[in-house]
C-alpha cells in the first residue's frame, strides 16, 4: 500500500529487506547470464569464490570496501542534513592532492609517524575545502548543491590533470605521476601488520586504512546521534524550519555538514595513495564517489549499514573481476551491469519487496 507505510519489525526493515533486494537483483542477473549462454550457478560460484575464496581475494574485497565505506559515509552525513552531495568523487580526488602535497613536502624531513597523520589531515582538509565551495554557494547564494557538486567533479578532474602534467610530475617521467613517496610515509599493508602478530596472509592492496574507515564509521555514528551538532544537523535534514526555531544557524550547519562529508571522502585518498600507490597518480578515485551514493542508500544512512553495504559492493567489485577473468562470455561490462542491477534494486527499487514483507510480517509487528 502506498499511502501509509505500515511499520515492519526493525530486523526485517534493516536486515531482511536489503537481503531480499540483493537476492532479487541476483535473480535477474542469473537470467541474463543464462541468456548470454553461460551457466548462472557456475557464475555465482565463481563470483563468490572470487570475492572470498582465498585470503588474497578477501584482501581485495576489503580493500575495495574501505573506499566504499569512506564515500558511503560522506554521502550519508550530507544526506542526514538534507543535502545531496554528488561530489564525493571530486572531493576524494582533491583530498588526494592535499595528501600528495603533504607527503611530497614532508616525507624527506619528518618520520613516518608524523608524516602519515599530517597527510591524513591534509586529505581530509582538502576534501572538506572542495566540498565547502559548493556548500558556500548553496548557503549564501542559493545555487543548488546537486548541480554544483556534479560540476565540481569535472573541475577537480581538470585541475588534477593540470597539476599532474605541469607541476607535480616527477622530473624525467613520461607518465603523469609524482615521484614515489618515501617508504616511511606508507600506511602499512595488512599483510605486514598481521605479520607483526605472526599471522600470515597473502599479499593484497588491503592496508590499515581499513581501520581508519571503521573508526570513521564509529565517529560518524557518535557525531550524528550523540552530539548536539549531530542533533542539529539531523533536525535541519528533516525540517529546516524546526532547526531554525531551535536556534541552529542553517548556513553554518550546511557548511559543517558538507565539510565533514568532503573530509570523509578524502579518506579514499589515504587508502589509495598512502596505502597502495605510494605516489600521487591520476584517476585513483574513479567511480568510488558515485558508488558511495548506492552504498549510503543501501546502508540506510546508518554507519553499520554502510559498512555492510560497502562489504557487499567490495565483494561485487572483486568477485566480478574474477568472474570476467574466468568466463570469457562474461565481460568486464557485464560485471558493471551486475553492479548496476544491485544498485537499482537496493537503491531505486528499495521498497519493491515491502508489500510482500508486510503481508508476511506486519501482523506480528
Amino acid at each position: 500500500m502506498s499511502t501509509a507505510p505500515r511499520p515492519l519489525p526493525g530486523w526485517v526493515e534493516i536486515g531482511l529487506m536489503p537481503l531480499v533486494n540483493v537476492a532479487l537483483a541476483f535473480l535477474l542477473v542469473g537470467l541474463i547470464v543464462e541468456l548470454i549462454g553461460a551457466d548462472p550457478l557456475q557464475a555465482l560460484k565463481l563470483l563468490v569464490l572470487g570475492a572470498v575464496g582465498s585470503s588474497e581475494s578477501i584482501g581485495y574485497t576489503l580493500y575495495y570496501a574501505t573506499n566504499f565505506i569512506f564515500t558511503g559515509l560522506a554521502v550519508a552525513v550530507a544526506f542526514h542534513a538534507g543535502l545531496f552531495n554528488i561530489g564525493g568523487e571530486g572531493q576524494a580526488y582533491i583530498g588526494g592532492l592535499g595528501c600528495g602535497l603533504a607527503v611530497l613536502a614532508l616525507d624527506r624531513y619528518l618520520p613516518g609517524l608524523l608524516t602519515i597523520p599530517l597527510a591524513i589531515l591534509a586529505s581530509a582538509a582538502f576534501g572538506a575545502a572542495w566540498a565547502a565551495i559548493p556548500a558556500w554557494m548553496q548557503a549564501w547564494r542559493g545555487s543548488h548543491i546537486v548541480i554544483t557538486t556534479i560540476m565540481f567533479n569535472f573541475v577537480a578532474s581538470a585541475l588534477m590533470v593540470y597539476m599532474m602534467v605541469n607541476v607535480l610530475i616527477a622530473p624525467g617521467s613520461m607518465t603523469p605521476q609524482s615521484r614515489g613517496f618515501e617508504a616511511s610515509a606508507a600506511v602499512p599493508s595488512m599483510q605486514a601488520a598481521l605479520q607483526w602478530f605472526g599471522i600470515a596472509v597473502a599479499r593484497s592492496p588491503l592496508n590499515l586504512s581499513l581501520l581508519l574507515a571503521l573508526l570513521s564509521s564509529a565517529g560518524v555514528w557518535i557525531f550524528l546521534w550523540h552530539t548536539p551538532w549531530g542533533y542539529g544537523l539531523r533536525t535541519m535534514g528533516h525540517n529546516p524550519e524546526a532547526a531554525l526555531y531551535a536556534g541552529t544557524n542553517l548556513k553554518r550547519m550546511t557548511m559543517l555538514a558538507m565539510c565533514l562529508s568532503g573530509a570523509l571522502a578524502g579518506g579514499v585518498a589515504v587508502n589509495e595513495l598512502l596505502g597502495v600507490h605510494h605516489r600521487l597518480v591520476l584517476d585513483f578515485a574513479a567511480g568510488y564517489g558515485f558508488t558511495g551514493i548506492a552504498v549510503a542508500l543501501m546502508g540506510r544512512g546508518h554507519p553499520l549499514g554502510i559498512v555492510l553495504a560497502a562489504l557487499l559492493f567490495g565483494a561485487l567489485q572483486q568477485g566480478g573481476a574474477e568472474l570476467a577473468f574466468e568466463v570469457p562470455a562474461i565481460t568486464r561490462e557485464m560485471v558493471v551491469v551486475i553492479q548496476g542491477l544491485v544498485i537499482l534494486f537496493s537503491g531505486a527499487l528499495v521498497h519493491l519487496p515491502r508489500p510482500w514483507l508486510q503481508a508476511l510480517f506486519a501482523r506480528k509487528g
Partner: protein
Amino acid sequence: MQELTSDAAIELRGIDKSFGSVQAVRGVSLRIERGSITGIVGENGAGKSTLMSILYGLYRADAGEIRVEGRPVEMTSPRDAIGRGIGMVHQHFMLVDSFTVLENLILGAEGGPLLAGGLAAARAELARLAQDYGLAVDPDARVSDLSVGEQQRVEILKVLFRGARILILDEPSAVLTPQETNRLLQILRVLRDRGVTVVLITHKLREILSVTDRVIVMRRGEVVAERATSKTSAEELAELMVGRKVRFSFDKAPARTGEPRLVARGLSLVDDRLVRVLDDISFEVRAGEIVGIAGVSGNGQSELLQVLAGIRRPTGGALEVCGRKVDAAHPADPAEMRELGVAHVPEDRLRQGLVPAFLASETSILGYQDREPFCHNYLLDGPAVGKYCAELMDRFDVRPRTPGLLSSSFSGGNQQKLILAREMARHPRLLLVGQPTRGVDIGAIEFIRRELIASRDAGCAVLVVSVELEEILSLADRILVMSGGRIVGEVAAADADERTLGLMMTGARAA
C-alpha cells in the same frame, strides 16, 4: 443500489487496532445514519483519528467488521474507500500549491491522456457542485493565493468531485478563524441537507452543539457514550470525555506586575515581497502578567511572534528583551533569545515545534540540546534525555508515556502538550505562546491555561497569540488587538468582551 432500506451509511462492529503495545481502538461498534452529521469527541489520544483512518483505509483494523451502506467491505487502501464513496479531509491539506483549483481537483482523476477534456468536464462539474452545495471557489485561482478557509473548501470539493457520499473531517476548524469556521459549519449543513453523510471530529463543543445531529464520545479507545445532540449539553459532554467535571472558567488573582521583560518600540517588518507585514508596533510585557494578542489570523500575529523569538529579523524599530537591546543592527537569533530566557511555543507545531521523525525524547530537548543536563563534554546524554522526557510527560500528562516513541506517533493534542511542557519546564523569563490550545482536548485546555496562569503568578512574562477570543479573554490581563500589521487598540481584560473585541478587529480594518 441494493439494500436502500438500510439507513446506516456506516456500521462498525468490534473494531480493534493496536500500535505495538498501545491499543488505540478497542471494540468499537457504532452506526452512522445516512444524511446526518455525526460528531466524534474525546480526549487527545482517545483514538478518533485512528478510527477514521481505519474507515478511510489508511490503517487496517486488527479485528472487526466495516459495513458501508449495508454491505460488508474490506478496506485496504484509500482507493477502496473512495470507491465506496468515502472521502476524508485531512487536517493538513494535501494540495499542490502552485496548481490552480481546477488542476488540483482533477489530480489523480485526470480522465484521459490529454488534460483539456478532463479540465473542461471538471469545470462543468465544479460549477454544478458550487451551485448545489454553495461551495463557491474560483476554479482558476492558484491554491497558494487562497486563504486557509478557501483551501479547505477546495479539499471538500475534491472529495465531492470523486463522488463521495460520506465525508469525514478530522479537526477541520483547528486552522480556521472563527469566521471561517462559521462558513464551514454552514457548508456542512447544506451538504447534509443534500443527503451527504458527515462525520466531524472536533474538540470544540460549540461546533458539536451547533451543527451535529448525534455525538459519539470516545475515551481511551472505546466508545463510552452516544447522545442525540439536542438532548445533551457542553457540560455533560465534557464530563463524559474526561471522566470528571471540567471547569470552563476559573478565577485568577489580579496580576502583580514587575519590571518590563519585553519592550517593543516602533517594530516593523517588510517581507520578501516588500509587503509591510508589521507596522510601527509598540508595546510591553511585564513580569507577572499575561498579554493577549487578538486578531483575525493573517494580520501579522505570526510574524510578530517570529520576530520576538528571533526567527526573523525586524527591518525597523527596536526590541528590548530581558534587558538586552535587539534591532536590525544587533539581531539575536533564536539560540541567543533562549539564552536570554525566552521560551517559544510556535503556532505551527508540526512545521516548527517538532521533528516528526525524531523520538519524543529528542523532541523534548529541541532548542536545548546543548544544555545541561542533556549534554556534557560535547556528548548528548541519552539516558538523561529519556528521563527528562518522562518527567515532562508525567507533569503534562502526555500519553502514551513512552519517550522512545516517534513524535509522529503521538496524537495531535499530545504533541502540543509535549511542546508546551518543553518550553514551560525551564522556567523562562519571557514565554511566547502561539495558539496554546490548538487541537487539544478540553481537559487539557483547562490544564494548559492553569499552567500558563501559574507561570504568570511565578513571575514569568507571558505573551499569548490566539485566534480564539474566548481563550484570550479567559487568560489575558491586558489585550492588544492587531489588524493589518498594526496594533489598533488595547483594553484591560476586565473591560473586554467578545463583541467589543470583534468590533475592534473588524472596525479598524474598515477604516
